[in-house]
């Protein structure tokens, strides 16, 4: 069987393009790909950019449980969730910095579980810790609150939320997180 010359040329051109593409993709990922995600455990000191965080414990409270512990929280959880139920993830941790008495970058902390994610709830945090806005570096032991609003779920189910695994993400480049388990 005779193979046409034009076919051979086309195949050679395609092979060259393929090799160039694959080579370039490997090069970009080797040179510029960031280091893999680092996940720490609870009670481990995690340091990034001069700050240190150590997660001591965590718990997930329904709005009734939160109300019993921190009166006034039911109103916050219900309002911020626009309507219906809400719950809250409380992370107890120790924060410190080697930069002296600077404000802590608390706004950068995010809680994440599967495809759910949320930043700190300012109102809930102020309720739990009235000095929250004035927190300075030092050896601070604080409770950080992250809300689960029912609008973030197709079918809000407190039991399901409670049984999921979560992590506290402290940095995104590189990705550094603490597994809450």
């Amino acid at each position: 069987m005779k193979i046409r010359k034009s076919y051979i040329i086309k195949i050679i051109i395609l092979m060259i393009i393929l090799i160039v593409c694959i080579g370039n993709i490997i090069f970009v990922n080797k040179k510029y790909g960031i280091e893999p995600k680092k996940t720490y455990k609870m009670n481990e000191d995690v340091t990034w950019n001069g700050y240190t965080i150590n997660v001591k414990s965590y718990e997930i409270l329904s709005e009734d449980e939160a109300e019993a512990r921190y009166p006034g929280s039911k109103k916050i959880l219900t309002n911020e969730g626009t309507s219906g139920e809400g719950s809250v993830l409380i992370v107890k941790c120790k924060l410190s910095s080697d930069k002296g008495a600077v404000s802590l970058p608390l706004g950068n902390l995010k809680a994440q579980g599967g495809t759910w994610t949320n930043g700190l709830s300012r109102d809930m945090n102020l309720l739990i810790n009235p000095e929250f806005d004035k927190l300075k570096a030092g050896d601070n032991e604080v409770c950080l609150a992250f809300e689960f609003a029912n609008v973030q779920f197709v079918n809000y189910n407190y039991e399901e939320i409670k049984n999921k695994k979560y992590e506290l993400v402290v940095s995104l480049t590189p990705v550094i997180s603490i597994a809450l388990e």
Partner: protein
Amino acid sequence: MKQLIKIEFERAFKNKMFYISIIIGFVFMALHIYKYVIPYRPSTLLDLMTQYPEKMSTVQQPGLFMNWIDVYGREYSMVFHFILPILAALPYSMSIYLDVKKNYINNIAVRIEKKKYYMSKLITQFVVGGSVVTIPLAVSFIVTAMILPSIKPEACAGMYVLGNTSLFSYIFYFYPILFIVVLLIIDFIGFGLINCIAFVLAGIADNKFIVVLAPFILYFFDFVISSAFGKAPFSDMLTIRILRIVDLKYFIMYFILLILLSSISYFIRSRKKDIL
């Protein structure tokens, strides 16, 4: 049948309108890459990371799964998706209409069964529609992968449209490559089926421009009506990054409706005694 499909594929793919559609698609991809991929290449970013490590720790490094056109969205993606039914219909939709008008169908009908002829037309129409969408998207994915590293998306980065209520968010955050494959397959099937509307109209309409524009008219009509009733239009659902779990039943209904329309049109034509 195999031979017939081969002939129809040659008519559809070795055709200047097909090349024009693909080139228009490439233009949108190139504009997106120029505006939203090249400025984020890591060589520039690494300098920033060294200078401002604190600020960089709050944002995720842009990567393939963040800045690729069909995940990132923005104007070029929106316009591309908006005109896609026209681009998909350009290469081949007129052929059934012209086959009848130019009596080409008479020559075919004496040689093979009508149902085989119409089936080959329908299959080609579907494949052309899907190809016009997926070829530029797949090429742009490869080009983006050559510029940006493949960084696994993190939900908390706040840079992705896919949230907890999105249908494909789990696949996206945990198996991003699989998400891209699913996205391309759904786009292929979705726009292939939309393109089959031209096949349905070719037997009814008396104007070749109506046949070509039929998929777009229906697509746009659905967009207006669905938006008026506060529902997600099919065009939004096909950009699957914004497809929500609650819209899944409507999404499936659209697919079933399009399959039904094409099948009914095919059976009516195959059973019709008069080909003209």
